[in-house]
């Protein structure tokens, strides 16, 4: 907001600070013309963002919950993603960044817990990003906003309160399209994104106690995803587990596993596995059974190690 005078931040309830306090005090600081409420319409929010960005401006749009991004899908898939291409680069809406809280929060049920990255990833022309913690969130968000391409930035809502780490005060960016290897390990590659990294890290520590050394990768950008970092790791370890909260069937893990088996087949010592949410709507009272938690991941690690023998 400071470095780009065209930047505006808008969406439902953004004015008073936002339902997750993401825009707290920003209206006071930058004024109601730049930080404001819109009417309740996700397709309106997305379309408005495209039009604003088409004039060269920076439009930071908030969708209140990723569960409600679906009315905006026409604007995202048919307009935002194709805006530059269909015009022969006469026009572009790279100035768009759509932010949406996503993921399990403990009590969200069907409509306050979804992770829609798989729907979005199937869209050439947009960038899809999901940070796994506050430090990454800041750097990735600044990169996303400044990216010359339109970005959908999914923010795991459980991490708003629970994830605590030192965040540098200064302006810094983290590269898009580049995965982050959080821990090196020689036995097996674990890949995830967003809130799932916390569970993968728990599983990694449990596995370590059993003498299994896991390499942990945070994908950071879903689209375009960092094929090289992933394949390099799996060629090294020969084993891989992909884990995400979203349902198993046609989840984004399927894309990773397909490419991994294609690129790393001759290095694989065991089938590539996925530990994911189940193929049900996200349940309320049974959330703890649904979540691909550290126990399920640990079981899968043991299973893969066993098969590799």
């Amino acid at each position, binding site marked *: 907001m400071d470095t780009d005078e065209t930047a505006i931040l808008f969406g439902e309830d953004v004015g008073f600070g936002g339902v997750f306090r993401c825009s707290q005090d920003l209206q006071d600081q930058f004024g109601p013309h730049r930080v404001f409420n819109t009417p309740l319409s996700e397709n309106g929010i997305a379309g*408005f963002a*495209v039009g604003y960005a088409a004039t060269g401006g920076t439009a930071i749009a908030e969708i209140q919950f990723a569960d409600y991004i679906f009315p905006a899908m026409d604007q995202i898939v048919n307009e935002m993603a194709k805006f530059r291409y269909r015009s*022969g680069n006469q*026009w572009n809406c790279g100035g768009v960044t759509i932010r949406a809280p996503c993921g399990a929060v403990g009590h969200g049920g069907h409509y306050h817990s979804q992770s829609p990255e798989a729907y979005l990833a199937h869209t050439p022309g947009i960038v899809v990003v999901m940070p796994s913690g506050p430090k990454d969130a800041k750097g990735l968000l600044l990169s996303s906003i400044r990216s010359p391409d339109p970005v959908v930035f999914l923010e795991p809502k459980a991490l708003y309160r629970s994830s605590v780490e030192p965040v540098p005060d200064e302006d810094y960016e983290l590269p898009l399209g580049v995965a982050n290897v959080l821990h090196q390990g020689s036995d097996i590659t674990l890949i995830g994104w967003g809130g799932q990294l916390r569970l993968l890290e728990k599983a990694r520590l449990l596995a370590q106690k059993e003498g299994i050394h896991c390499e942990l990768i945070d994908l950071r950008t879903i689209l375009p995803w960092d*094929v090289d970092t992933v394949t390099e790791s799996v060629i090294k370890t020969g084993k891989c587990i992909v884990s995400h909260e979203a349902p198993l069937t046609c989840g984004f893990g399927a894309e990773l596993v397909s490419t991994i088996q294609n690129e790393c087949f001759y290095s694989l010592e065991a089938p590539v596995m996925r530990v994911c949410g189940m193929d049900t709507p996200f349940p309320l009272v049974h959330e703890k059974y649904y979540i691909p938690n550290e126990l399920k991941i640990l079981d899968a690690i043991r299973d893969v190690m066993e098969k590799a023998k």
Partner: protein
Amino acid sequence: LTLRSQCLKDSKASFPGAMALSLTMLRGAMRHTNRALAQARRSFATGNDFGVYTGNKKVPFVSDMEFVQPNTLPTYPAYRIMDDFGNIVDGAKDPEIGKEECLKIYETMIRLFHMDTVFYEAQRHGRISFYMQNHGEEACTIGSAAALQPQDMIYGQYREAGALMYRGFSLQQFADQCFSNNGDPARGRQMPVHYGSAELNFQTISSPLTTQVPQAAGAAYAYKLAEEDRIVCVYFGDGAASEGDFHAGMNFAATLKAPCLFFCRNNGYAISTPVTDQYAGDGILPRGVAYGMPSIRIDGNDLLAVHEATTEARRMALEEQTPVLIEAMTYRVGHHSTSDDSTRYRGTDEIQDWSKNRNPVTRFRHYLERKGWWDEAQEEAIQAKERADVLTALTTAEQKEKPSVDDLFQDVYDTPTPNLERQWSELQEHIAKYPEHYNSAH
């Protein structure tokens, strides 16, 4: 007081009956008084005969229960300056747009007519894959474009080639896009008639309907913040106005006070769907009123009315920083597209009537003739010239090379992503193996 005098009157009547009557009335009176007191207490908080609601909105209260019956409301009238024969109607004023401007408008109408006729035929003969005509709506798009300024951003639906043509898009440029050749800045990526021009401030057309409406609101908001002498004009049809994006775009522009002109071409049909299947209310105009913006319905086949309404709408949008709605009543003379045969769902009599008796181009021509600016000789000359120019553009476009297949991978992103680089190189290897199949010969 009434009750007291009543009681006194009653007491003069037979005693027990009167007492009973009086008591009943007294009880009734007390109930009435209690209610009145309670009401007064509530009213005191909000007012005697109105309530104040969120946003400091005063709403008067009434005690007659009356439902608004829309079908009893009068139809909103349409503004016109000329009659069907190009005469200035009683009470209207000739806006005196000027000879030079009027002739430019008329020439554009003729050029558009010939381009539509020839390109439609070209599709029938398999020379281009698809086409959409603008017959019947020339006044709507050319009249409004003429009233805008060049810096105003236009968002179209797909039947606004008239606006683009008025702004200076050449016949060659139109033809190149339709033939998807090397001359198309969009590299042949889209179907014919999906034009766009950054130079002429005309946003690239996309097939999904109405998506341009909230985008127009966003663009207008950018001009508002930048305090530019600039508005957005977004076109859409009667069918497109049923989409959710219409509601979103209008509502956003109104609440955010964006200087956006919403121009509805109400041409009676959305492909085969007549407006009687499209909406039950009085068309699009009342929706503008409902969203809180100045709105007008006009005779869309009256070039002068279109021009004047757009001029005033632009002034309002800019000076008052408000969206404005114009609903232009018109008629789609041509089929929806080359994929449509409209005689399957409407009578040829109807089409003929509009084409012959209510034609916006001939109507404007009569006006020009009356002004002494046009005659038969000029008419013959321009018809021949424009047709010849269109044919030249067509044959030239047909000869041009197609864009390189390398263009397939550009502009998906600002810079091709690794997966695109990889697919591009795989495709190049594949093409090299089967050159005969992939040689782009005409």
